[in-house]
């Protein structure tokens, strides 16, 4: 019991810290692509401290407060289900679907809160976010089905274990297709260009985020950090082989080695998303929906069919 609690605490702290570093990396890399110097890597932490230390706070009612906490809670729950090397707190059969679901519902929480503020920009943003979510469901579903079909299981942990024997998922053609589709979906889950339609800073003033300020925004920053960590971790677990190191004698060394390997893979996933985000302009919502229902869906469906043959 005690050990599980400690593990959960460790995962939470590690995820938050590394997530903030990821946010810093995104900002620095984007700045370098623009030929700027960019902020220091710990800038997101300073932003969060500043937001949490605001002296006045504006609330728009209970749902507004609750939505923010709901988003944070869902993200924390998701991170507990994803195996982090050989540390895992919660494990259930079928957690592949559960995690996919949990990674999406924070957006719902943010939307509740945004809509209850009554701001028309937040309304438009929430509408667009819902449409984006609807658009990504199809390729996402096919990618998950391909994965489950190939390994014959819905358990993330078993998929990671199977990859230790048979090589990374993306080494197999059907799963490579699924991975490409999932990576395109990931772009929308990160909220990066060309699919940052829901936040669109210059166009609809950050969309759902427009009314959040002070502590609400601080909590959302923390949520964003953990979500970044969780999404990259999930991708590297199911497609890039995860990491279960057993070469060392001491378990601590094993854990550190697995975390390091995972970190490298996560940063790779992150950089791909950042590069794509930095060079593409923004789609409009109908273009994004059409895109998702066409190419990633075809690729992922092909993957799923090939996997079941």
């Amino acid at each position, binding site marked *: 019991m005690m050990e599980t609690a400690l593990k959960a605490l460790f995962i939470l702290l590690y995820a938050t810290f590394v997530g903030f570093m990821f946010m810093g990396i995104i900002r620095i890399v984007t700045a370098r692509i623009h030929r700027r110097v960019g*902020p220091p890597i710990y800038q997101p932490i300073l932003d969060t401290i*500043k937001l949490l230390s605001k002296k*006045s706070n504006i609330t728009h009612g209970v749902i507004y407060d609750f939505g923010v906490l709901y988003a944070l809670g869902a993200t924390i729950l998701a991170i507990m289900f994803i195996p982090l090397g050989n540390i895992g707190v919660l494990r259930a059969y079928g957690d592949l679907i559960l995690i996919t679901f949990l990674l999406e519902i924070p957006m719902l929480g943010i939307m509740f809160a945004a809509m209850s503020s009554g701001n028309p920009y937040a309304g438009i943003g929430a509408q667009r976010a819902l449409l984006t979510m609807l658009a990504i469901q199809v390729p996402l579903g096919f990618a998950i089905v391909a994965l489950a079909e190939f390994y014959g299981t819905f358990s993330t942990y078993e998929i990671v274990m199977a990859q230790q024997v048979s090589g990374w998922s993306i080494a197999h053609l059907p799963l490579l297709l699924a991975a490409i589709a999932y990576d395109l979906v990931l772009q929308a889950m990160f909220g990066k260009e060309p699919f940052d339609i829901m936040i669109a800073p210059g166009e609809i003033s950050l969309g759902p985020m427009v009314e959040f300020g002070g502590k609400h925004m601080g909590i959302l920053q923390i949520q964003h950090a953990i979500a970044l960590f969780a999404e990259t971790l999930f991708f590297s677990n199911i497609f890039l082989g995860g990491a279960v190191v057993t070469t060392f004698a001491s378990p601590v060394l094993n854990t550190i080695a697995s975390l390091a390997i995972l970190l490298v893979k996560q940063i790779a996933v992150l950089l791909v998303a950042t590069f794509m985000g930095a060079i593409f302009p923004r789609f409009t919502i109908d273009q994004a929906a059409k895109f998702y229902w066409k190419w990633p869906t075809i690729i992922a469906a092909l993957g799923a069919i090939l996997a079941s043959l």
Partner: protein
Amino acid sequence: MVDWRLFDPLFEYARKRSMWIVSFCTGCGGIEMPPLATSRYDFERFGVMPNPSPRMADLFLITGYVTPKTLKRIIITYEMQPDPKYVLAHGSCPLNGGIYWDGYNAIKHLDKYIPVDVAIAGCMPRPEAVMDGIQKMMELIETGEADGWKRYKENYEWYRKNQDELFGEGWREKTARRWIPWLMDKKKEVKEE
């Protein structure tokens, strides 16, 4: 309870290094923003980030001349920002009217309507001067001298009087109802309860 005063130096440092700006690009000065934000001067080095929403803003940039019409929006936007908030007036126009010193429709002293923490002189100030202003602002935040938001609260009567003299009584509700109706309606509900 934790005594949060202990962490004040940390908070001040974070506030200083992470100013999110809402720029009210009313006048000519708005054109200085792109070079500041892009690779030539790059103010993101200091954590300054342009931000479209007044709810998350710390630094309010007023880049140029102010007319009564824009002043209404400026005051309402300023009041929407959470404390602590800072105002940086940009160019001679908000300072003393600049070349519109005898204009019938320009506000001569922005200071009378909202508190200004740092003013940059020049018509128009070069990006270097704006960088200098931002540096000055950071210094003031660190030493706690950038207390415009406190002054606004303490001398609210005076500011209110000046604003009402210019626009007439009840302008705030009228403008706000037009521009942020979702907030105004909510306030009414609360009153009725």
